[in-house]
């Protein structure tokens, strides 16, 4: 933590010698085109841009649209569950049930494949990963653009599914139902297949960028933890997604040509499908959570003005989660013909994954200990993340315990568990990241007060929606049913009310951010006093990010940063070369390892 006397001496130093104040030069924003650009030229300058930031911004818009679409489906699900008889989504009970199946399926599939998986890596990662490396772009800008175009293609398949016969298999496409249902499995799985390659391309790009484009002086253990998290995620994206891809190819072949691999009537085994699917999809939950943890590792030290505690533990635990995540898929099949021995082994391995997760949580808490905590909006989200993710992770352990899972499998307990980790974890961290980096990405400050109100609403709404589902689950309410017995009604209504609060909170958060684009105060280069490189260029950055190469310092040492009222933000006071600071770029050899 930076002491008050240190701050005074820094202020004096820049007053005495203003040239020691590092102020990044301001250039034309990457968001705008030079004057005189025609309308269509302008559109094309976005659609075919190779600038990682523009691609990231387009991803951001795209996934927010997907989130809205998935959210509407969630609304249908929650309101159908207001009372125990399926009556809202159709004339007859049967119709309502069918529509309900479609609603929860598309909700899950859209949220998973179109929103959460690309959310942090493809949107925020794209904008900030190269900047954190002091680089001009990712290693393969064209592939990056292709990844976004593939995402759009996949999204269109989903929209087409939605507009035709829908989909009612559940987001997991389990066979044999998925090979027999009359809904549009083919369109949807082709969409997921395409999205998979979008995800692979992003991951591949990030691994290569981090490996080969780190600046001089940024060794692996001087990388911001966000990069460690994204790097680990990227490895999973490259290694797990192709298994999903081939699984979907097999599913498509099964459906169109009857290859019999998953079809018991032809000697195949439907549980093999589940193994294939979860071999991807369990690692995929770490594709979702690792970047979220990575954001939290950035936000907490900045808003505590204190060096991150246990840097290397956090870094290694990301890699550990990524690797262990490949070994636990079997915990989704405890109740589907898995042998007892396999189940016991998978259960034990599942427990082992929670160790690195626990390490992270303790390190974040220790970072906060005796820090000077500022409750700015990103930090508020980070705190709710800590609370919600911990609940989600711990309930994961209940489910990983073999004997308990037999009771809880396919109940609302599972639904609550994964919403606590996916929404309470990833979405909240995503919001933390969006609020944290908003000033950098768009060059404006949002209204702190309303943003924090939104955060509070989201937190309350979230818990109100999903905590009751834990109780429902333990009482035996199964998931994926449009109706239920009267005894469950109270908690279901609680949950639906929570949904309303949650929705209000999210719309408010979006509103605050969008409003800032029109009337927000201009953002300084470094509003929060962070030490990572992306804050060492102007806000918003120029096309090539850095007009002058920034200094690579320790990412979590705040000693040289001081709030300068003239700038309205933090400035870096030129570091002593004796302290080991190095310029980001030298035109010499690349830093490979």
């Amino acid at each position, binding site marked *: 933590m930076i002491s008050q006397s240190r701050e005074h001496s820094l202020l004096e130093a820049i007053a005495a010698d203003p040239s020691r104040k590092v102020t990044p030069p301001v250039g034309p924003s990457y968001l705008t085109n030079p004057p005189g650009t025609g309308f269509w030229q302008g559109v094309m300058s976005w659609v075919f841009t190779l600038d990682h930031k523009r691609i990231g911004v387009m991803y951001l818009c795209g996934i927010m649209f997907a989130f809205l679409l998935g959210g509407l489906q969630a609304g249908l699900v929650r309101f159908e569950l207001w009372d125990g008889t399926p009556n809202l989504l159709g004339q007859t009970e049967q119709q309502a049930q069918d529509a309900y199946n479609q609603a929860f399926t598309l909700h899950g599939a859209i949220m998973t494949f179109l929103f959460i998986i690309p959310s942090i890596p493809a949107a925020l990662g794209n904008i900030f990963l190269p900047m954190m490396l002091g680089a001009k772009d990712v290693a393969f800008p064209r592939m990056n653009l292709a990844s976004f175009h593939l995402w759009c293609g996949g999204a269109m398949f989903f929209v087409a599914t939605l507009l035709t016969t829908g989909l009612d298999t559940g987001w997991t496409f389990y066979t044999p139902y998925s090979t027999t249902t009359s809904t549009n499995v083919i369109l949807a799985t082709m969409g997921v297949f395409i999205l998979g390659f979008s995800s692979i391309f992003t991951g591949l790009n990030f691994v*290569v960028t981090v490996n*080969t484009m780190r600046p001089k002086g940024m060794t692996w253990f001087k990388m911001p933890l966000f990069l460690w998290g994204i790097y680990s995620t990227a490895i999973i994206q490259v290694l*797990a997604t192709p*298994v999903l891809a081939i699984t979907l190819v097999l599913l498509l072949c099964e459906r169109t040509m009857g290859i*019999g691999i998953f079809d*018991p009537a032809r000697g195949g*085994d439907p549980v093999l499908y589940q193994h294939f699917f979860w071999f991807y999809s369990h690692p995929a939950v770490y594709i979702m959570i690792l970047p979220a943890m990575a954001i939290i590792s950035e936000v907490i030290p900045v808003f505590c003005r204190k060096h991150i505690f246990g840097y290397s533990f956090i870094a290694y635990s990301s890699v550990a989660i990524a690797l262990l995540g490949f070994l636990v898929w079997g915990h989704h099949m405890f109740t589907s013909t898995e042998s007892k021995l396999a189940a016991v082994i998978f259960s034990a391995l599942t427990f082992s994954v929670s160790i690195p997760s626990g390490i992270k949580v303790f390190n974040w808490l220790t970072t906060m200990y005796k820090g000077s905590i500022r409750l700015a909006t990103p930090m508020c989200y980070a705190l709710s993340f800590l609370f919600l993710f911990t609940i989600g992770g711990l309930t994961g352990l209940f489910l990983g315990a073999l004997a308990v899972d037999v009771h809880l499998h396919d109940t609302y307990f599972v639904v609550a568990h994964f919403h606590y980790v996916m929404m309470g974890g990833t979405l909240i961290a995503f919001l933390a990241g969006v609020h944290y980096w908003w000033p950098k990405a768009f060059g404006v400050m949002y209204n702190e007060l309303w943003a924090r109100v939104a955060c509070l609403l989201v937190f309350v709404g979230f818990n109100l929606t999903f905590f009751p589902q834990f109780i429902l689950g333990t009482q035996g309410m199964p998931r994926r049913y449009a109706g239920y017995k009267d005894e469950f009604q109270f908690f279901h209504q609680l949950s639906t009310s929570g949904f309303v609060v949650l929705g209000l909170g999210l719309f408010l958060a979006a509103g605050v951010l969008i409003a800032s684009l029109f009337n927000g105060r201009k953002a300084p280069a470094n509003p929060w006093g962070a030490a990572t490189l992306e804050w060492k260029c102007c806000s918003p950055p120029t096309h090539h990010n850095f007009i002058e190469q920034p200094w690579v310092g320790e990412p979590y040492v705040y000693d040289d940063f001081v709030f300068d009222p003239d700038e309205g933000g933090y400035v870096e006071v030129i570091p002593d070369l004796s302290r080991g600071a*190095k310029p980001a770029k030298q035109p010499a050899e*690349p830093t490979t390892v």
Partner: protein
Amino acid sequence: MADAATLEAPETQPHHDGGDHGHDHHEHHPFHAHHFDSMDQQFEAGKLGIWLFLAQEVLFFSGLFAAYTVYRYHHPEVFVNAHTHLNVWLGTLNTIVLLASSLAIAWGVRAAMRNDRQTILFTHVFTLACAALFMGVKTVEYTHKWDEGINVAGFYTYDESAHGHGTPAHGAWHERMPAIIATTLGVGLLVSLVGVWMTSADRVVSGWTVGSIGLSILFIGLGIVVAKCVMPDARQLALMDAAHGGAHHAAHDDHGTDPHAAESHAETSATEPAAVESAATEPAATDAAAAEPAVATPPDPNFGPANFFSIYFIMTGVHAVHIIAGMIAITWIVARTAANHFSSDYYGPVEYVGLYWHLVDLVWIYLFPLMYLIH
């Protein structure tokens, strides 16, 4: 190496001070992407990228190999039996062809490092020819099976008992084959000649591109011809079978693995509804049932050669798609070589495509024994 000059002047832009550095000529290389500091960095990035892509490919195929392993483990006899429909000679031929192509493309990469443009061109064109030959042979193998009714499970109509008793081939592919051969050879030759002509008329890049395409078509045709010579068509087979008095058919029976023997297990495990169903549709199976000893896990009566061929067609089909993708990539390299893009300073793409091609070959090196050579 601590570069004192740059430490003192951190603002220096690498791209504007080239004059002071030994990397000068790299900076102006036409294929140097602006976001890389040096050509070396660009090359390393591409190389890591392609390796990751290959890792991704391996995992893509791993799903198929996993499926193969699971089913072969559970039904070894079906695999051993069904694979006899594959022609080992054609498999061997394709293996040799691919190995040769791998050698050629590796040679081509080496040539790129040495600025030897002619050798890059010829090795890559040779690789293309091999790939096309491979596809031609596969065409014969596939169509031959389709004609016999051997297909993925959903379209499997092959009748073990009817075969070998002089049933003539009933397939349409077989009849269309001469026309296919004539077309591929004719069109291939024509297009190749156009390519050669264009090259001589100073349109080198398009000439080599068109020539490569023509050559590919031509060699598909040649592959078909060669395969036809190796694999007797169904009519000949029938004649041969008649001559040998169905000896090879009898050999199948004492494996105890033909579908009828397997179906008899169904009776002992009548708990499975599907099993009952299939037994019901096959009245012939009932008499053998009593003789069968009780087994701990009876083989699934629904699992038969059709399942083997599902796996066969999906695996080799996915592999063939990769071959086609590789052919497109190699043609791209040929075109760029013709345009004189590559030199010892910049030959990344040649190497990346080469690596990809090796992987595609490697997959075949696994597929060949797993499909054609099992015992």
